[in-house]
Structures are given as C-alpha cells and as structure tokens.
C-alpha cells in the first residue's frame, strides 16, 4: 500500500490536477491479459464467520472523511468493464430487451433429447445438468413440491432485473418438458448424503422427478440456466482484490457497483447475496483473456427461499450482537421491524411484501462490507437505476415468471412497485436528486429525478459559478454569475448547486471548454 501511494504520487503529472484530458472515461481501458488464473472455491462457513466476526476489508472510518466510491469516472459513474455495463438507466431498453435479459433466445433445443450429464439429488429440490442437441449446457433447477413456480420464477425474473441494472448474469429460461425429454448420459454419478458415489440409473432419474411438482398439463417446470461464458475460476469476494488479476486494482468494498448492489438486493429481497453466489470466469474478447464477474443463483429472491418460502426475517442478519442483546434482555418485548410484516398466502410467491420493507434497515443474511460501506452518493446511483423501471416494465419482467396465479403475480408487481418507490423517496432525499448534467445552448441543464418521478422536486436551487484551476484543483468565484448560463471563463468552470431547503446537500458540476466543445466532465456531491 505504501508503495502504491508513493507510485501514485510520482506518476501524477502535476500535483493536485483534477481532470485529465480523457476524463470522464466511459469504459475501463482495455484490460491486460490475465493468462491462467487459479480456480478457487470458498467455504460458505468461512465466508459466514469471517464476514460476521472477522476481518473483511477496509470499512468506512468511524470519524473523519468517508472513503468515497472508486472504480468510477469523474462523473461518479462506474466505468464499463468486467463488472458492470451501463444499461437501462443510461440507454433505455425496450420491453423486449428487458424481458430477454442477457439471452439471445437460446433456450434448450427441443429438437432432441436433453442428455443428463450431472445430477444433484440432495436437498428438497433436485437438479440436473443437461446438454441439449445443440451441445449447449444448462443447469436445470426445479421448484419445491410445496411451492410450484416460486423458485423458477424468481430465478428468471431477478436475472432480468439484474441484467437491466448493469450486471453480468446467466441466461435463465423457464422450460416445460415431459420426462421422456431426458436421457441419461454415460458415466453420470450420484453422491449420497455422505458423498459416496455410484452410477445413476434411469430409476434414479424417475425417483428424483417424483420430488418435483407437475403442472396441470402434466409437465415438469424448471429453470434452465445456460452455462455462463468463459472458464469458471470461482467467486470474487466482496472485499479486497484478486491477487492474480492485474486488472483488479480497486478493493471490492469500495466499488460503487458493489456498494450500490445493496440497494438492488434490498429491492429484490436478495438476502442470499453472498460471495459464493457470484462467479468469476475468464472470457476472451479481442484476443485478450480477462475476468468477468457474474451474479448467480437468484432462486432465493422475491419471497422465495428456493426450497421453502423465504424466512420472514429476510432483511435481517442471522446474528448481531446489538440486536441479540436487545432481544434477550427485553424478553422479546421490542420485536424487530420485520416481525410485523404480513405476507399474503401466495405459494408461487413465497414471502414478499412492501409495507414493512425499509431499504435503510434491510441487510443480507450476514454482514457484507461493500454494502456496509455505501454512502449516500452510492445509494443515489443505485436508486436512480431502480426508479428507472416503469410500472409497465416491472409488469413485463414479472411476466417472464409465467405465473399461473395472476393474483400472486399482481401482488409481486405491487411489491416491486412500492419497494421501488420507497427506495426513490428515501435516497433521492439524501442528496440533491439531480442527474444527467449537460450543456445545452450554452446553459447547464439537468434532470431533477425526484420531480421526474413525482416525488417532490427541489425548486429553490441556487447556482454560483467559479473559475476552476484544474492544475491547482482550486475554485475562484465569479461574482454575479448565478444563472444556468455557462460563463466563458477559461478552460474549466465549476457550478455550485445548492438549496436552502437542503442546506447540507450540494453538487459541484465541472464544465470543460476544449476544441470548440463544452461538456460536463465532473461531479462532486455532498450531503
């Protein structure tokens, strides 16, 4: 770390220079070749205990200035790369694109048999790995007998949302098939509860399918998840960096796309958002192997707990010292907020609600340092993306779940809509909710997202301009320059936006004139 600090100091062309000529970067620079990285596997017990009780990256300091998000450009936007792609908020996706998600319309081929090449018989819900006639590999997962449609719908719907939110996700399809669609591959083995392996028989397949609900039409319903692109090398942690990846230079706990992920997980109730549910793969693009980071396994979202309805305690840690002591010594007379939630009885949905939901209180099953490190500007970044989904778009994506119980589907849509609105109201109030700054006709303009979403815009905005000395990173006020018109004062000017109604919240917008163009190149938010 000391060497890195010294290095950064040395390579800075001029100490204090704020903007560099190519700012703001939309994409990360082309990555280095990563070669062959070590495939690693985590222990879920270790992940739980180390995150719950141990050291887990660098947390926000208890006093002093907070650690702002990194892996962002000078506008505060994550750069496109192996972690994140700008999608729905930035480049509005059509309904068709939203419902397709990452897929290119490649569900398992129905031209021939699906060859079972691996079997998971443990647990309440079994699963297969199949290869279709087009030689594509899919992970096939089912619903529990008690809750038909629940996990398969959640897996497919949530994958679409996370894709539209900018993440890499698997290409999930809901499929219906009869047992004779499956054929047993050669040498497939089955492990019993103690890990002892034996060859799988046709009778085993039949027994496994007995644990799976049938549709009214006598078909099996499942999620077929297309194997993600690239060679798997294990999951990334939510803190630190991969020590063997030269492109992984920002500690994960400081990445905006991982800090903001907390808000997305809260919205979709993805409380199982732990490291082992992510996956890194090595993909080769333009001849360069690089790491791509996937979010996986969304069966425990939207009220589903995969094998059972999600626990009502979803949104709370398994354990916390403070709350446990409070519960113990008050004899349970101060119940946690989630204990008051009411869940309508929709077996296909599980336990999902919006009335008690509070994104400020929602946490995953155990502490995640990237989530804990989030700051109001991380939250705003996430909230604006959540708010970008219209009611119609939410309804369309929920349609991907193919629920037969329309009332259940309507409840899910209502929950997503109302949870979205709570997120917008809370996080648009913590910073000035302005975004999409641009220069039009010589004036600085922006979108008030709170106003756009009918959440009470900010009306008493004051603008004051300064000259900005980029090399010294210093502002000099321009007297009387208080309109939106960009003053013609040197290469850089800065506009300070403030509101008397939100005295602690400001935005400084940096504008650069160069080569005949005037553009916004930087943003600072305070709260």
């Amino acid at each position: 770390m000391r060497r890195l600090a010294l290095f950064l100091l040395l390579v800075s062309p001029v100490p204090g220079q704020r903007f560099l000529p190519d700012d703001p970067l939309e994409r990360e620079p082309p990555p280095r070749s990563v070669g062959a990285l070590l495939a690693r596997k985590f222990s879920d017990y270790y992940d739980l205990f180390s995150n719950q009780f141990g050291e887990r990256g660098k947390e926000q300091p208890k006093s002093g200035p907070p650690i702002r998000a990194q892996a962002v450009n000078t506008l505060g936007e994550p750069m496109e790369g192996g972690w994140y792609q700008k999608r729905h908020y930035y480049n509005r996706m059509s309904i068709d694109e939203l419902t397709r998600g990452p897929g290119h319309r490649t569900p398992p081929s129905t031209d021939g048999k699906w060859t079972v090449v691996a079997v998971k018989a443990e647990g309440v819900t079994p699963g297969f790995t199949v290869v279709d006639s087009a030689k594509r590999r899919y992970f096939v997962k089912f619903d529990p007998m008690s809750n038909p449609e629940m996990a398969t719908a959640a897996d497919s719907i949530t994958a679409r949302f996370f894709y539209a939110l900018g993440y890499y996700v698997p290409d999930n399809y809901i499929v219906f098939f009869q047992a004779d669609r499956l054929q047993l591959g050669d040498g497939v083995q089955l492990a019993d509860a103690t890990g002892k392996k034996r060859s799988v028989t046709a009778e085993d397949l039949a027994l496994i399918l007995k644990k799976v609900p049938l549709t009214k039409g006598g078909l099996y319903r499942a999620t077929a998840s297309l194997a993600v692109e690239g060679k798997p090398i294990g999951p990334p942690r939510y803190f630190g960096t991969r020590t063997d990846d030269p492109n992984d230079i920002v500690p994960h706990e400081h990445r905006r796309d991982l800090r903001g992920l907390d808000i997305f997980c809260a919205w979709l109730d993805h409380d199982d958002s732990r490291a082992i549910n992510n996956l890194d793969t090595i993909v080769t693009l333009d001849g360069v192997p690089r790491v791509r980071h996937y979010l996986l396994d969304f069966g425990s979202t939207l009220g589903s707990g995969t094998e059972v309805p999600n626990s009502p305690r979803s949104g709370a840690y398994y354990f916390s010292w403070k709350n446990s002591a409070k519960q113990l010594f008050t004899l349970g007379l101060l119940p946690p907020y989630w204990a008051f939630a009411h869940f309508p009885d929709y077996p296909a949905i599980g336990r999902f609600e919006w009335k008690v939901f509070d994104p400020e209180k929602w946490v995953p099953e155990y502490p995640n340092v990237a989530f804990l490190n989030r700051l109001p500007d991380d939250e705003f970044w996430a909230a604006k993306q959540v708010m970008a989904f219209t009611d119609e778009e939410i309804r369309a994506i929920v349609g991907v779940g193919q629920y037969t119980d329309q009332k259940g589907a309507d409840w899910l849509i209502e929950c997503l809509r109302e949870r979205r609105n709570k997120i917008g109201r809370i996080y648009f109030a913590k910073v000035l909710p302005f975004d999409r700054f641009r220069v039009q006709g010589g004036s600085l303009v922006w979108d008030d997202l709170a106003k756009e979403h009918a959440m009470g815009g900010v009306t008493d905005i004051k603008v004051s301009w300064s000259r900005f000395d980029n090399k010294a990173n210093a502002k000099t006020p321009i007297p009387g320059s208080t309109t939106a018109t960009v003053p013609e004062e040197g290469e850089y000017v800065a506009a300070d936006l403030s509101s008397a109604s939100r005295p602690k919240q400001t935005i400084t917008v940096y504008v650069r004139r160069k080569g005949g163009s005037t553009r916004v190149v930087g943003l600072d938010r305070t709260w």
Partner: protein
Amino acid sequence: MFFLKRLVWSLAFLSGLSAQEMTRTAEIEKERDLKAANLKPDEVSPLERKLRDFKDQKYAEKFAAGYHGFRAKIGNMVTGGGFAIGPEYYREGLVDGKLTFRASAQISTRGYHKIETDVRLPSLAGGKLFVDLFGSHRNYGSLQYYGTGPNTRKEFRADYRLEDTSFDGLVGVQPMKYLKLGGSTGYLWTNVGHGTDSRFASAETVFSPAVAPGIDRQTNYWRNGVFAQLDYRDDPKGPKQGGNYVMQYSWFHDDKLGIYSFRRLDIDLQQYIGILNRTRVFALRAKTTLTDTDRNEEIPFYLQPVVGGSDDLRGFRPFRFSDRNSMILNAEYRWEVFSGLDGTLFADAGKVFPRRGFLNFRDLETSLGFGLRFNARNATVARIDVGFSREGFQVWFKFNDVFLTRRFGTSVGQPVY
C-alpha cells in the same frame, strides 16, 4: 532494498510519462503495471481450505452415518444417568427404501446400560401405513423414588435399580394428512433391585410393599394399546403454530403374578400460538395419565406415572412425585433472540393423585423459570432451563425439545423412556 527497487522503477515510469501528457487511461494502466509486477496466486487461507474440505468431504455426514452403518451413539440416557456412549448400527433405505433398521448398546458414566433395536417401515401403501418393531433392554442402577403420593418429602429420597426388557410391535394408518391411528402389542419383563447410589437409602429398605407396590415382587406384562394423533403443527421439529393432540389407551396384563394388571390412558394436548411472524410463540401443553385397576389389583410403583424433572415440573427433581394418576400443565412464552437462539419464560403446574376424581386444578405443585433454546434448522438441538419451586431450583441442560412427543404404542407406559 525491495522498496528502493520499486522507487527506481516508479521513477522510470515518471520519466517516460514526462514526454507525453498524462491521461486517466495511462494512470489506470500504471496501476495495473504495478499490480502486474506483484501478482501472486489467489488462494484461500489454510483455515478456509480446511473448512471447505470438511464440508465437501462430508465429514460430519460420514460421522453421522458411520462406517458401513456403524457409528457412535451419544447421550439419550435417562435423566441422572450421566453421559452415555456406545456403538450403533443404523441403516435406512433398505428393502427398496422402505425399511430403517437401528440397533444400539450404550453404557453411561454411572454404569447404566441400554440396548435397543428398532425396525421401522415408516411409509408403506403410499404413505398411508406404518409399522414399527421395537425392543429394548435397560438396566438403570439408581432411579430416584420418594414414595407414592402427592405429599412425599424430598428428604426421603431413595433409589432403586430398574431392569426391564420389552418387545413391542406397532401398526398405524394415516388416513388423512394430520391424523394417525394405530394399535400396538408387546411383552414387558421387569425387575427392580437394590439402588446403587450410596448417598441414598435403597427403596426397599425405606418403603414397604404397601407404600410401593411391587417393590418386593416384580412381574411381566402382555400389553396392548391403541392410539390416535391429530397433528397439525407447522413443523414438528420446532413447532411455532398449530396443535398436536395425542391419546393412547393401553391394557397391561400381569402375566406372571396376576395382581398387577392395570389400564392406562395417556392424553397429551399441545397448542402453539405464534405471533409476529412466529417470532413469539406461546406454547401450551396439558398432559394427563390416568390409570385404572380391577379390585384388589395394584400398579407397581415403577410403572406409576411420575411428575418432576426436565420435561414437566422443572423446579423439582426428576421423578419427584409418583402415584396412580398425574396431570401436567405447561405454558411457555418463547421469543427469538437471533436465528439460532430462542429465549423462554415458563410456568409449570402439576400433581399426582391417587384417584381419577382428583383430576382438577386444586393442590397443584408449581414451578416458574426461564431458559434458552439453541436451534438448528428450526429444531431444538440443546436447551438450558432453570426452574424454581418451593423445593429450590433445578438447572437442566438437555438435548431434546421440552414437549417432545414420546414414541407411540405400549412402550410409552414405561416410566422412564
């Protein structure tokens, strides 16, 4: 030295950059260069590797499953028996997955023995029929006995040895999801003897056969019974909502002496009322055992219902009261402390009584207390209960659910299960 080399290396970069304008791209590239010069394999820590392998290799499952079905059986001895351990042979999924077999032999730190064998067919005829064959031999060297009746004194604690052997068979049907009906039959050999705990007088030296029937002569029984269970608890391993109502009626026929035959009715009613998403649960239980004999017949003291101990009157010693009939009322308020721990406050009331006419709420012994319940997958794996009564307090550390439903069938008639 290494730091100096890095400094020189960085300065070299700086000199290279001075000829051109610095860009953000170049800045990131340089950071990557620095990282690239220090790459090392990204491995998990030794501790994490061990934990991962422990799970992947399924060591816990293998330990539980044993070696070719052989494994250690730990605990599950009668209260006061000490720590028990012994070999167990356990196989499930036999005969096309229909049959489970178990046989075990244990000895405890206090020298108690227990040998059991169990053959179960839990799901025949599409889950509508179940069969259970059970045999046991037990030799408990020092069970507590305070005399018969509700007014015994704790200072008069004595002990006795109980040795019994039984074989029972049970057939049951499950006509509906929540309902089980069935019947059982079996044979029981009993013997009692001199208590082995030198701190206490042996029962036969303190109590006469008039007070403690059967203390001088033991007998054997044919026993037959019927039972019914209505169980709509949300999760029998750790219920938070619903009810479980069990009734068993048994005929114990003295096959040897002809003077100790009796009939026994066991009723166990449990109700669970969960509130606030079942994070707070009121657990209620009413339980009674009523017996009946023909004229001139008695119930041996070692087969009489008992009250007191970790599962009923928790402020009293185990087996503190015994008589021909008993009743127990329990109320617990349980609250979730965190996902693996519940707290509980409880109140117990109960009594033993000589005639069924005394089945009422008068003259109840009471105890109050608190406890902690350690849960895994919603099932209680351990509990600590502290009960207070007029006779002081008792601390219980147990590995069972406090309202555990005992085995169906005639073997439930044995006083210590």
